[in-house]
């Protein structure tokens, strides 16, 4: 048998390259109506009165009064209404839809709607904590007394916009039996469950189909449920096909982003040894909590990054502000925390005047060590081998020495990261309860029935390859269509680097069973359900135990040059090495490595987004800067095999791992190039100027 990692061409690359693939905006229903969202012009206000214009025949205004069930979008916290009813809590919050056959008339009607507001004072300071977590490891109070030195730093990170190139969109219709929606989404069952609650309907009354997704990165995890609920309410009332496609500015201004963070880290040190660390983490949740609590958990659990520290005191808060709600974005809280901890370890080493590399090596976690939550790193940790390989490839040590002089205007930085694979804590066992099915038709073709979405990460190819390899049949004999909730079981959302490890694990198990029970020419069904390995114990209230079944590991090395006249950063080259267990397709993982890193670098030095009085200032692709082809450096990526016993062929999570180390690596490189400590990302030229001029 071939090594499963050996790359094959992606199954969908031909139709995608030639423009034949159907994205939501490419799907046309006959006589479809157009929907446009009327939004709040205020960050916080009470809605006093609404005056709607008289509607011409065929035109509709759909608002909260039309919602048959609960006016809430089922996410995690129940605080996002489908349509704002009596109050708005952020700028651009959706209030109603205007729907009709002619876009010109729809726009005219939008102008004729008058809503009277009682404007209230919005909250932008981070004071209203709506989620608060606290956990400890060891006994920090005790080691505080022994410390001979206390080192404290504060770190800040800003918004990051997913900026999938395909804006959000959903279209749908009623076929007489069901409300059917097609959209650009990551989680068909999140959407379906939200629809059932909003429509207050039977399980089989709604059907959600995934249209080919033009990029997601977490931005299409929970947000599509909102527009799906709005559209479903409209379809339920109007009973005609309707399109709701966002324009870019609307998307950027009103959809979820990465949470800005403030993180304070305090190290208690004795004889140049860290005895313990206190972390205080604050995230800006925006106007709604949504899934911010889960983002916070992941951030907190990553508090010591790849290091083993025996005594910890960790607190975290999500603050509610009258700004656009923040949500899922590749990395899910970990990028902010890993930025802080990687910078902090360097800053502590610098303050102790010891070599940062040797200092960090002392704390690098080893197999059997206790995690930040007192769980166990059960599987082999091969970071030392990875380190030695990537140090060689990058010539890091020599460059680090050479660039020590500020006149070089160059720097090289190295981050070490891990990423917990799958849902945090017991989510997989208690909330998701994934189910997968394989269906062998009488033609002996095998259908993979799962709710996992290919959003570019290649899961269609890798999942098909996995099944074909196990069954030892040609790829063409295995079918994996875009998920449709009428046919696929709920294998969980396409998030959290769980798709290959968890869903793929179940699919592989089903495929092995099918292989063993194979009856040529017979219609066969195989179902598998997730069962948590019994050695994994997690206490959600105390944050104690194994937060994740497995961890992926990575090292990023980034070399930069800073222009002393313009303070612009050029990323010259990067070297990266990853332990993802086993790559189900090498090229697919390397593609994740390239793309994830560019987003991680963007978070670190390029992508600036901020709000003024709750209004996002960079509302289009001109002003929100992501890397172009000219900004992208040559990237050298290396993969290590370190199979995880419970993953298919040993696979662990990969998608998020490649992003999380980019920001600290580039920030550390810039730090060396300018000879100043960096505490805030993105490290823009404006910030570099301030640091360099601040003698």
């Amino acid at each position: 048998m071939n090594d499963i990692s050996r790359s094959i061409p992606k199954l969908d690359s031909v139709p995608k390259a030639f423009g034949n693939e159907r994205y939501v905006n490419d799907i046309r229903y006959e006589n479809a109506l157009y929907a446009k969202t009327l939004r709040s012009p205020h960050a916080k206000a009470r809605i006093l009165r609404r005056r709607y214009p008289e509607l011409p025949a065929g035109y509709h205004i759909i608002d909260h009064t039309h919602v048959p069930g609960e006016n809430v979008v089922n996410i995690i916290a129940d605080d996002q209404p489908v349509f704002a009813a009596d109050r708005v809590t952020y700028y651009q919050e959706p209030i109603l839809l205007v729907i009709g056959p002619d876009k010109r008339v729809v726009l005219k009607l939008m102008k004729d709607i008058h809503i009277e507001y009682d404007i209230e004072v919005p909250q932008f300071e981070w004071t209203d904590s709506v989620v608060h977590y606290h956990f400890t490891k060891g006994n920090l109070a005790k080691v505080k007394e022994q410390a001979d030195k206390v080192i404290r730093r504060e770190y800040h990170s800003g918004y990051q916009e997913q900026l999938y190139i395909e804006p959000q969109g959903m279209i749908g219709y009623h076929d007489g039996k069901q409300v059917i929606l097609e959209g650009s989404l990551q989680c068909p069952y999140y959407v379906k469950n939200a629809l059932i609650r909003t429509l207050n309907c039977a399980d089989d009354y709604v059907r959600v189909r995934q249209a080919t997704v033009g990029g997601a990165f977490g931005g299409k995890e929970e947000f599509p449920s909102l527009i799906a609920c709005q559209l479903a309410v409209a379809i339920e009332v109007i009973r005609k096909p309707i399109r709701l496609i966002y324009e870019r500015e609307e998307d950027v201004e009103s959809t979820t982003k990465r949470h800005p963070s403030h993180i304070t880290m305090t190290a208690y040190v004795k004889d140049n040894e860290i005895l313990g660390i206190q972390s205080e983490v604050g995230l800006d949740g925006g106007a709604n909590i949504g899934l911010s609590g889960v983002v916070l958990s992941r951030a907190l659990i990553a508090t010591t990054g790849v290091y083993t520290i025996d005594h910890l005191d960790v607190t975290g808060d999500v603050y509610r502000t009258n700004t656009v709600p923040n949500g899922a974005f590749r990395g899910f809280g970990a990028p902010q925390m890993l930025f802080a901890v990687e910078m902090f370890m360097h800053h502590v080493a610098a303050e102790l005047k010891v070599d940062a590399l040797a200092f960090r090596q002392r704390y690098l976690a080893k197999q059997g060590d206790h995690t930040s939550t007192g769980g166990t790193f059960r599987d082999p940790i091969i970071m030392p081998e990875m380190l030695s390989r990537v140090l060689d490839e990058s010539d890091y040590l020599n460059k680090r020495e050479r660039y020590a002089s500020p006149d070089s205007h160059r720097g090289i930085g190295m981050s070490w990261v891990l990423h917990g694979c799958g849902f945090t804590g017991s989510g997989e066992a208690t909330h998701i309860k994934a189910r997968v099915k394989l269906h062998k038709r009488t033609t002996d073709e095998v259908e993979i029935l799962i709710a996992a979405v290919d959003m570019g990460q290649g899961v269609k190819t890798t999942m098909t390859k996995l099944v074909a390899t196990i069954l030892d049949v040609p790829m063409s004999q295995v079918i994996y269509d875009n998920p449709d909730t009428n046919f696929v079981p709920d294998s969980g959302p396409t998030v959290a680097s769980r798709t290959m490890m968890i869903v793929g694990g179940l699919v592989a198990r089903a495929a092995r069973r099918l292989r063993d029970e194979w009856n040529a020419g017979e219609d066969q069904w195989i179902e598998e359900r997730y069962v948590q390995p019994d050695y994994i114990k997690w206490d959600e209230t105390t944050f104690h135990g194994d937060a994740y079944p497995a961890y992926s590991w990575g090292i990023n090395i980034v070399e930069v040059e800073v222009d002393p006249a313009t303070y612009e950063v050029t990323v010259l080259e990067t070297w990266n090495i990853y332990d993802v267990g086993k790559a189900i397709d090498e090229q697919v993982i390397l593609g994740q490595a390239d793309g994830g890193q560019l987003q991680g670098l963007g978070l670190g030095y390029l992508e600036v987004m901020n709000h003024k009085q709750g209004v996002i200032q960079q509302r289009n692709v001109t002003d929100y800067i992501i890397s172009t082809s000219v900004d992208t450096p040559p990237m050298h990526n290396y993969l290590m095999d370190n199979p995880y016993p419970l993953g298919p062929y040993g696979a662990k999570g990969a998608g998020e791992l490649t992003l999380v180390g980019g920001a600290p690596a580039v920030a550390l490189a810039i730090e060396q190039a300018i000879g100043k400590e960096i505490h805030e990302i993105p490290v823009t030229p404006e910030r570099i100027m301030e640091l360099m001029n601040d003698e």
Partner: protein
Amino acid sequence: MNDITFELNHEQVTITADPSLRLLDVLRDRLHLTGAKEGCGEGECGACSVLINDQLANSCLVPLANVHKQRVTTIEGIATTKEGKLLQQAYSKEGAVQCGICTPGMMMASYALLKKHPHPTREQIQIGLSGNLCRCTGYNMIFRAIERAAKEGEGTW
């Protein structure tokens, strides 16, 4: 309403329409050629790229009037050519396609680039694609795809 006549993928078409309509909308909405995508609506992302008289253009910025009596080529027109297939194969082999929303535009930019520079340097490739944003791939595999298409299509470009 005016009659606008142009050559589209080697066929003559006449459209009676408002001449200020964006070429992108005419292609997608009127002619059902949905290979060109709208990513930003302001000429920054390149997902809507087409060729006008063999030159790369952002169809979201082109008023229909500007293609009157001109020659327009879209990804659907490139798909059937030898060069288009070469590029597609190179994209596949190098893993240059992820979510795919930027890919048709990227293919158009690659095509225009190789027509201008049959043996492009890495820098020429980077500049040639600089108006086509991709959020998935980190671009490196696209660079390699173009280098492969240049090599395997030696003499074609």
